[in-house]
């Protein structure tokens, strides 16, 4: 080919605070190509894309758009070159309407500056229809589900006639049918000559939709190649630098007494008729798609939500849990999803985050004993392999995996016997994921009853003894870990199949 690629990034280097994040990275994206950018968290994907998007300036290297060198000095320059960046965190204004968000900053006005609402609505409607969604352009964005917000972000990129769209993990909040719709759309875009850089951890998706891939590891280019016929395991190996087994971790072993019995738990509009039990040493998984009500179910069980009916028995005794404090007293611990919002207290030190739920263990005559806290933390640091030099720094300075371990330590210190993990490996890179799994298994071996909520079926399949699939607030199927397969779980999770109760 004599023609230039749409975008070429040559020998890009970048350091933050003297730490090199990118080293001589090359990336070429052809016109009308879907290019997967792969790598663990911290491999440098985001930095590379932020350089392309004009957010960061490279220390070395050049960027060419259609063969001409461009200095991406600001996001505006990048946008003017036809590059749109759809961030993982959506940039939507909830209190504005759909069309107002779509045209934010580029409103259509008539000669005297009055907004042409009808025209903006018409164009919004047209683009959304192309994506196969019908949303009233005058609807407020705050009333929409996350997946729709995602689609509106994409529509916005289309509206601006972007020639290259960078999508950073766009499918995390999408249901399966929405994902397939997105892929359909991506293929259509490709046909019309738009290029896409696609960042995702879900390798299966990538294989389905991408033409070529580039793998980064530790800020260096590992490989760029054509996607077709490539083995997923090979790619995973390239990403982590070693092979990660996809085998099941758990093997059957005998469980202890019943730890938790839940009967007929219901909450209007959230979930209904939930029955399940967990034994000591058992790992029970709950999976389903976004909006299946599993998070709400366990937030209720933990007493964060108060309006629910049904019986909960802990170790055979009926308990009434209407506040997390009561849950803790009953022996429940909860490692919530969205760690930053729900789990860590970012202004408190690592040690103080660990001791937060069990202050009584560190007090003498009402005063906190710093030394005791420090000693206890050192124990957990060894036990859970928490990597931190100085535990007096605030917890937000730690990597996601280490933060998660501190939260686990918090519930261990509170001496809870039943541990609920919601999305335990969210935002944690592949290597640290394995470690979290090992820790959870070790806890089960110690006789803790474990509940894991995850939207990723393979995750629950690998570490759970029993799996419950939820759809629209109901348990639609139950599997044992070894008989479950991803396809069947998906059938029940999407509501395609629904058997009353596959009681087992």
């Amino acid at each position, binding site marked *: 080919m004599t023609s230039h690629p749409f975008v070429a990034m040559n020998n890009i280097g970048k350091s933050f605070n003297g730490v090199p994040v990118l080293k001589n990275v090359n990336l070429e994206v052809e016109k009308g190509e879907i290019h997967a950018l792969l790598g663990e968290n911290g491999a440098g994907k985001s930095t590379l894309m932020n350089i392309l998007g004009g957010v960061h300036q490279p220390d070395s290297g050049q960027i060419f758009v259609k063969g001409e060198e461009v200095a991406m000095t600001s996001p505006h320059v990048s946008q003017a070159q036809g590059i749109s960046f759809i961030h993982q965190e959506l940039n939507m204004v909830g209190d504005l309407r759909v069309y107002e968000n779509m045209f934010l900053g580029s409103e259509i006005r008539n000669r005297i500056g009055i907004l042409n609402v009808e025209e903006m609505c018409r164009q919004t409607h047209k683009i959304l229809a192309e994506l196969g969604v019908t949303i009233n352009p005058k609807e407020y964005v705050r009333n929409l589900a996350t997946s729709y917000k995602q689609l509106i972000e994409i529509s916005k990129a289309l509206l601006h006639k972007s020639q290259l769209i960078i999508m950073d993990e766009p499918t995390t909040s999408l249901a399966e049918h929405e994902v397939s719709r997105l892929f359909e759309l991506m293929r259509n875009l490709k046909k019309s000559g738009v290029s896409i850089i696609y960042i995702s951890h879900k390798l299966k998706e990538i294989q389905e939709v991408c033409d070529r891939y580039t793998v980064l590891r530790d800020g260096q280019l590992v490989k760029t190649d054509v996607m077709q016929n490539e083995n997923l395991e090979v790619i995973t190996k390239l990403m982590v630098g070693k092979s990660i087994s996809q085998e099941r971790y758990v093997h059957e072993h005998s469980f202890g007494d019943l730890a938790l019995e839940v009967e007929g738990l219901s909450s209007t509009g959230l979930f209904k008729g939930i029955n399940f039990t967990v034994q000591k040493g058992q790992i029970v998984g709950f999976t389903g798609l976004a909006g299946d009500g599993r998070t709400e179910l366990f937030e209720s069980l933990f007493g*964060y939500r108060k309006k629910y009916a049904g019986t909960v028995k802990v170790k055979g005794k009926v308990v009434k849990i209407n*506040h997390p404090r009561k849950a*803790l007293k009953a022996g429940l611990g909860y490692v919530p999803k969205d760690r930053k919002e729900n789990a860590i*207290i970012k*202004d408190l030190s690592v040690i*103080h985050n660990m001791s*937060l739920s069990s202050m009584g263990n560190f007090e003498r005559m009402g005063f906190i004993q710093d030394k005791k806290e420090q000693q206890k933390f050192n124990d957990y640091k060894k036990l859970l392999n928490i*990597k931190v030099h100085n535990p007096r*720094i605030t917890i937000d300075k730690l990597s996601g995996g280490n933060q998660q371990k501190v939260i686990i330590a918090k519930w261990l210190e509170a001496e809870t016997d039943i541990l609920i993990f919601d999305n335990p490996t969210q935002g944690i890179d592949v290597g640290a994921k394995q470690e979290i799994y090992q820790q959870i298994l070790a806890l089960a071996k110690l006789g803790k009853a474990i509940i894991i909520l995850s939207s990723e079926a393979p995750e629950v399949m690998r570490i759970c003894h029993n799996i419950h699939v939820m759809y629209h607030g109901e348990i639609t199927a139950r599997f044992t870990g070894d008989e479950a397969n991803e396809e069947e779980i998906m059938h029940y999770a999407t509501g395609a199949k629904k058997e009353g109760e596959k009681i087992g």
Partner: protein
Amino acid sequence: MANIDAKEYSPESSSMKSRLSWLWSEYSVIIAFVIIYIAASAMNPRFLDLNNQLNILMQVSIIGIIALGMTVVMLSGGIDLSVGSVLALAGVVSVLALNASGSILIGVFTALLVGAFAGFLNGLMVAKGRIASFIATLGMMAGARSIALYIAEGGSVSGEVSGFTAIANSDFWIFDFPVIIFFAMAVLIYVLMHKTRFGRYVYALGSNEKAAMLSAIRVDRIKIGVYTLIGTLVGVAAVIETSRLNSISSSSSGAQYELDAIAAVIIGGTRMTGGRGKIIGTIFGILILGILNNMMNLMNVSPHLQGFVKGLIIIIAVVFQKRE
């Protein structure tokens, strides 16, 4: 992998620059205090006079006691606008109790009780009623002042028990009693915030309320405790205020105290949204305000212009803190 590790796990060793910025963010208010102190001594030799210095301490003690409570409220993510009005109400009611009973002890306890009860009501509104603290305490500010005016029929009430004035007008060694009470309260609140679980919970709640609740903290009770605490401290301040002149005005006592207290907390580096800040910072914040007032008086700056200077200092303080 080594590079990534270094970046994630040891930010404290990353560079000299971050160390300096840490020093600044932790101690900026003390540095500012030293600069202002030196500037004040250079500008007016009378400033360094021991009596003048003690006078400054005496003048800041009432607002200082309130500012300690305000620090706790603001660390929890709230604000209390009602302190000035509650001070007037507590003062008026306590003088009536004092005169009726003839007992100083009963007078003092009444002030503490009225303050604590008003604070408790604020706490209930914020924690159980889920009313924004700004609004709940704005309501209390109007309500408490109104009741004080009603009880005192719009005027002042004076104590009729001899010995009551001794509380604010005695001294021990070189320090006036109010200054000693201020320091004692400061030590108490410092210990409360840094050595007990209550303090830890307040920081946690101010930083991330949902995470605090999901950590099995009884967030509602802590909030009620926080507002009751500041109410009680306002009661202490009311006793001093009343005892100083043996009378309290239902219309003017405590007016704008909330602004001075909030200013001291902000200058002291506490974050408006909660979760971050220090009692020590507030103490230096109140001292900075006291020195500025004193300087302006010594230099015969028009009292009408003093508010302007105060406003300027608050804004400069916040601008510098934003730099972090």
